[in-house]
């Protein structure tokens, strides 16, 4: 069953057509990757789902409910969390506090509860901290709960961002380049973590990723974008041998003379 459906999404920025008639169907408890060269519209697609952008046309259906054009907070309320391409933690507070903010939608203490601290508010707070520690343990950061977020090494900051996204007990998590800037070892750990999100927690994952080894390794389904259009879709095997995909990467790389495209294409074909 498809948990998240994007149908005929069109998004324009002035004269630029960022997304054109994009259809993506994300099956429940699957890892669905969105790949494509730089500027293909991957992050724009994420922003259309999470409510940061309003698509001009098309609909986003989550759990049978249309959510396109909703405020980001209301989309999040329904159980869609995300991480960011450039890390956006609350840098100056502790690791645990970051996770606690992520749990916002499951806590109920209001103004009077916060001031009066009724027993039920204290219980809620204590339970939230316990739960927060459990989530940190899941990403192996529980020993650093009292650290200031910005003092964590890069890879751990990425993991903390995932932990914060998990704290809202989402049914869908959107990961925007979770392994960007990581060394091979960290990348491998993150790949394992992404699989555990699906297998242990039953979370549906929509993944943007440039590292083709990761994509080919974990994805149940892959959607390839180029210039805002879907050019291919299928499992890793199908994508790897798809001539259009190879051309999209290699053609552009050859045309502009950047070896980035070559490397990507080689990765697509080779891994």
């Amino acid at each position, binding site marked *: 069953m498809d948990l998240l459906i994007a149908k005929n999404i069109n998004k324009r920025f002035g004269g630029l057509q960022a997304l054109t008639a994009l259809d993506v169907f994300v099956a429940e408890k699957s890892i669905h990757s969105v790949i494509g060269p730089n500027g293909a519209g991957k992050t724009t697609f994420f922003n259309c789902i*999470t*409510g*940061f952008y309003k698509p001009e046309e098309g609909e986003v259906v989550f759990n049978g409910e249309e959510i396109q054009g909703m*405020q*980001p*907070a*209301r989309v*999040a*309320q329904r159980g869609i*969390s*995300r991480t*960011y391409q450039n890390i*956006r933690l*609350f*840098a*100056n*507070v*502790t690791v645990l*506090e970051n996770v*606690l*903010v*992520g749990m*916002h*939608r499951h*806590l109920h*203490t*209001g*103004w009077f*509860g*916060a*001031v009066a*601290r009724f027993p039920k*508010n204290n219980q809620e*707070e204590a339970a939230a901290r316990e739960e927060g520690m459990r989530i940190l343990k899941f990403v192996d950061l529980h*020993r*650093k709960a*009292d*650290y*200031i977020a*910005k*003092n*964590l*090494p*890069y890879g751990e900051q990425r993991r903390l961002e995932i932990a*914060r996204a998990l704290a*809202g007990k989402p049914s869908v998590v959107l990961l925007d380049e979770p392994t960007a800037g990581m060394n091979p070892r960290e990348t491998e750990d993150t790949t394992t973590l992404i699989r555990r999100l699906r297998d242990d927690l039953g979370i549906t994952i929509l993944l943007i990723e440039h590292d083709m080894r990761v994509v080919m390794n974990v994805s149940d389904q892959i959607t390839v974008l180029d210039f805002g259009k879907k050019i291919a879709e299928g499992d890793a095997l199908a994508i790897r041998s798809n001539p259009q995909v190879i051309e999209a990467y290699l053609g552009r790389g050859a045309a502009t003379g950047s070896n980035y495209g070559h490397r990507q294409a080689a990765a697509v074909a080779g891994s």
Partner: protein
Amino acid sequence: MSIDRPFRLTDAVLYGLYGGIAALLIALVGMAEAFSKREIIADVISMAQVMLMGVAFVAALFAANKAQSSHRSITVASGIIAGAMVGLLLALLALAIEPLNMRAMFVNANRQLVALLLPFDQTPIIGGVILVGVGALMGLAAAAITYLPSLLRRSLLISLVGVVLIALLEDVLVVVLPKNIGRFVYESNGLTIAGAVVLFVLIFAITYLWLAQRDNVTRRFDRMPPKQRRIWSFAATITLLVVLFLLPQLIGPYLSEVSDLVGFYIIMALGLNVVVGFAGLLDLGYVAFFAIGAYTMAVLTTPELPIVRAVIPQLNFWQALPFAVLAALIAGVLLGVPVLKTRGDYLAIITLGFGEIIRLVVLSDALKPFLGGAQGVTGVARPTLGSSVTDSPQEFYYFILIGILIAWFITARLKNSRLGRAWMAIREDEDVAAAMSINLVGYKLLAFATGATLAGLSGAMFGSKLGSMVPASFNVLVSINVLAVLIVGGMGSLPGVIVGALVLIGLPELLREFNEFRWWVYGAVLVVMMLYKPEGLWPEATRVRELREDEEPNESIEDPTGLAKPSEA
């Protein structure tokens, strides 16, 4: 200034010039002359001399500090040069006043100023040389002090400032101190020499001991078992409350009056702290809610305003108080709903406008039958307890104290709660906060309403304390003042609010000579604070991390387990 290149003596000249310009300013705006009548140590040194020498000292301190890495002789030389430069500029001023007829441009450039700058009735040239010499001496002292261990240096500087402050607060302290101590320390104008020495030694000893033992004490406190720790902090809280309770009896009516004023600002600043410090919403029209609280109290309790009295019966203080607070709360929500969708600068401008609108509304002739217009409202009710009416500042102190405790309690609890975290998230990154399903407008509104309510509470008590209300009390400077209290104390920090209010509101009230130059000093304090201590006097930990980003590497200070490994990056 932070370019990494070897220190040159021309840099010392530059620091000297900066200091000299500051000294010229002090002389030409009339500060020097006004303060020359105020003795710090009777018949030895006046406040004006302390200020000018202080400028030379500070300029030399900066120069010597900058030159620290160079050879010792260069450090000493740069201190002397910077200090002497300040003296030189002042000497040039003194010499130029008569021949250039500077009086035509600067009212304060008169003969008294010359006499002040060139003492001992020497010829101008010898006087000028003495002035340069004194500056150089200050520079030498400043250079010498940089070679002391930091503990000694800090205690020394703190004791010097402390002695000057105690001398300045003579009028206030002489009333409070027991007679024989007062007579030992103070002359009719300034400290006695013996008093100054004893005070200096005393403050020095206390600061030195405290600075040396502080870490030890806090560490021992942290190591205590939780139960013992709780007993200690409970005891400390009780002691503090007892002291606060007895304070007005100890300090007399005048200081109680000042405390009351500080108290109004503390309540307001605690409220604005929620808006600006917690949620990061810059509100420049905060005075509006203060005014609404005050005017609601006034209109509801005054026997005047016949038109109003025909409709609403006259209430007493306690009946009117909830309405005043409620009115501010409602105003906060009403303003908040349309405004809080804007961000940053726009919010600041809109709130600034709102503050002015409220002031102009109460000033207007059209509403005069209801709000009293430019003449304001008099006969505002005082709080009553049983049959006794509170009207002395000492009695009023207790009502304000209760107000502060309530405001403190509410904001402290809010800070460490789900709401406090949501506000932190909004302050740090609005988009991410929204993606955590935090309702931005809703939570901003809560912060705004909380702030407005506390301002209303402060305003209602302010109105009652004053007994009469004029629109002029509610101009934009009040908003700026409250904001400055937060900045100087430390944004987001509750103890910072108290420190900021004492320094910015209390101190100027006590230093009567400063009143004329209040805004000069105010501006200087803010500039210096922003340059050298942007996180405030009693900052909040989060804030320090934010502002001192580059200076704090991945230290393990935040690591209670000691497991921290330095990051490879």
